[in-house]
C-alpha cells in the first residue's frame, strides 16, 4: 500500500494514453470547425470561378529577348535554373492563396510572379517559399529568394535594406466592422475604440496617427483577425481595402465602411545590390502595363470583389523608396 508504487501499472497507463489521444484528436477536430473557421475562409468564393486568371493571359504574356538577359546576370541564373524562386504567402485571398484542390497558388501577387517567370524563362514556373513578414529583408539580403511578391509596402526605411521594383499595385487601409455596427462610419470614429489589426501590417503604424486614442490588438493572420472581429474582441478591423473586401464577400457578418484612408504602394522586393535586376523588372512592369496584361490580372483577381473596372496601374517609381 505504498503511495509511491501505486502509480505504475503498465496496462492502465497505456489505456489512458489511448484515451488522451482520442480526447486530443477530438479537441483538434473541433478547432478545425470552429476555431480557424475553415468554411468561412475569405476568398473561397473566388476559387473555381472568379479569382483565377484565364490561360490565354499567360499565353499572350511577353517573353524577354536574349538581348534583355545578359550572361551572368540574375535573370540568366534564373533562366538556367528553370524556375523563379519567390517569397510569398499561401493564405492571402485574391493576392496569393493556394487552391486546396489544384494546389496552384492564385491571386494578384501569385499571378504577377508567374508572369515574371514567363518573361524570364518562357514558362510560368514559380517556386514559392512562404516567408513571414519579419524575415523578408533578411531573405532578400541572403539571396534565399529572387524576389518577394507579398503586398510588400514600399517605405523609405525598407528601401535602405532592399530594392523595390514598381510600385505594381496601390491600395489603402480601410475599416471593417460587424454588420450590426452603426456608430463607426469611417476611420474618424475609431477614437477610443478597440481596433483589430494584422500583426506586421501597415495598420500597426498608421492607426495611431489616423485614429488617435484607439487601442490596438494584433493577430498573426487575416483569418484570425476576421474571426476576432466577428467574436467581438474589437470594434473594428483595419486592414488593406482589398483584403477587407474579400473578407466581407465571404463573411456576411461583416462590412467595409468608408473609403481607404491611406495609400499603400506595393513593390516587388529585390536584392538591394542588384540594380540590373531591378531595372529589368521595372521594364517588364512597363511592358505588361502597356499591353493590358496587368489590367487582365487585376480584373481576374482583386477586380472580382471590387466594383468598377481595373484602375490605372501605378506609375513606376512614384512611391518614396521605389
Amino acid at each position, binding site marked *: 500500500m505504498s503511495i509511491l508504487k501505486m*502509480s505504475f501499472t503498465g496496462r*492502465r497507463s497505456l489505456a489512458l494514453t489511448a484515451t488522451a489521444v482520442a*480526447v486530443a484528436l477530438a479537441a483538434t477536430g473541433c*478547432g478545425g470547425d470552429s476555431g480557424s473557421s475553415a468554411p468561412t475562409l475569405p476568398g473561397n468564393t473566388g476559387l473555381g470561378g472568379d479569382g483565377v486568371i484565364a490561360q490565354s493571359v499567360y499565353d499572350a504574356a511577353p517573353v524577354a529577348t536574349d538581348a534583355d538577359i545578359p550572361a551572368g546576370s540574375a535573370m540568366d541564373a534564373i533562366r538556367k535554373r528553370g524556375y523563379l524562386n519567390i517569397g510569398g504567402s499561401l493564405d492571402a485571398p485574391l493576392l496569393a492563396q493556394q487552391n486546396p484542390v489544384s494546389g496552384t497558388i492564385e491571386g494578384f501577387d501569385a499571378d504577377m510572379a508567374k508572369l515574371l517567370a514567363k518573361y524570364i524563362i518562357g514558362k510560368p514556373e514559380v517556386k514559392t517559399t512562404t516567408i513571414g513578414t*519579419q524575415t523578408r529583408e533578411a531573405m532578400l539580403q541572403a539571396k534565399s529568394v529572387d524576389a518577394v511578391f507579398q503586398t510588400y509596402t514600399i517605405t523609405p526605411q525598407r528601401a535602405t535594406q*532592399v530594392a523595390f521594383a514598381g510600385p505594381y499595385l496601390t491600395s489603402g487601409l480601410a475599416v471593417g466592422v460587424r454588420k450590426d455596427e452603426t456608430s463607426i462610419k469611417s476611420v474618424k470614429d475609431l477614437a477610443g475604440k478597440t481596433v483589430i489589426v494584422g500583426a506586421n501590417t501597415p495598420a500597426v503604424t498608421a492607426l495611431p496617427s489616423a485614429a488617435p486614442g484607439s487601442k490596438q490588438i494584433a493577430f498573426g493572420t487575416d483569418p484570425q483577425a476576421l474571426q476576432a472581429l466577428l467574436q467581438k474582441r474589437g470594434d473594428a478591423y483595419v486592414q488593406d481595402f482589398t483584403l477587407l473586401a474579400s473578407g466581407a464577400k465571404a463573411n456576411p457578418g461583416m462590412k467595409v465602411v468608408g473609403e481607404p484612408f491611406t495609400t499603400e504602394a506595393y513593390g516587388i522586393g529585390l536584392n538591394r545590390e542588384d540594380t540590373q535586376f531591378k531595372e529589368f523588372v521595372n521594364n517588364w512592369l512597363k511592358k505588361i502595363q502597356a499591353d493590358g496584361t496587368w489590367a487582365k490580372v487585376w480584373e481576374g483577381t482583386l477586380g472580382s470583389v471590387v466594383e468598377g473596372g481595373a484602375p490605372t496601374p501605378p506609375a513606376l517609381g512614384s512611391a518614396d523608396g521605389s
Partner: protein
Amino acid sequence: MDALTAHLSELGHGLVTTVELTVVTTVGAMLLGIVVATLRIAPVPLLRAIGTAYVEVFQNLPLLALLVLFVFALPTIGITFPLFTSAAIVIAVYEGAYLAEAIRAGINTVGVGQAEAARAIGLTFGQSLRHVILPQGLRAVIQPIGNICIALLMNTSLAAAVGVVELTQAANTVNLIEAQPIAVFTGAGLAYMLLALIIGQVTGLLERRLAIVR
C-alpha cells in the same frame, strides 16, 4: 543598433509583459503541477487516472494549437477571456503537465520507508504529502524545474500569435517600421537570454541552499 535604441519604450513594454506572463504562469503551472503530481500518486484509482489523462493530453498537444483553440474556439460557445488572461491560462495549464512530471520524478526519489514511516506515526495521505513527501521531493528536482521554467519563458513568445504584445510581438512591430530583422531580433534574443540566465542563477542558488545531498 539605432533600430533598437529608437524603440526602447515599445521593447521595454514588451519585456515587462513577457516577465509578467512568465511570473504569473510559473506560479500557476507550479501549483497545477503539484496538484497533478499528487493526483498521479494518490491512492484512489480515479484520481490517478485524472492525473495521467491531464499529463498525456497537455504534453501531447502543441502549445500554439492550444492557444489558438482557447482564443478562437471558446468564444464560439460564448466564453471569452481577455487575451493576456487567455495566454496565461493556456501556458500555465500546458507547462503544469511538464512540471507535474518533474515533481513526480522528485517524489519517486523519496524513499518508500519515508512514506511508510509517515503512515506509521498516524499521518493521513495529505499530511504525509505535505510534511514528508513533497518537501523532500521538490528539493530533489530544483534543477529540472528551473529548466522547465526557462522553456516556459521561451514559450511565452507564442502568445504573440494570439495578440498579446509581449517581447516577440513588440520586436515584430519595431521591425515593421525599421525593416532590420537581424538587429531587432538579435536584441530581443539577447533579452530572452538574459532572462533565462537570471532564472538559471536563481535555480542554482536554490539548488545550493536546498538540495538534499544523498
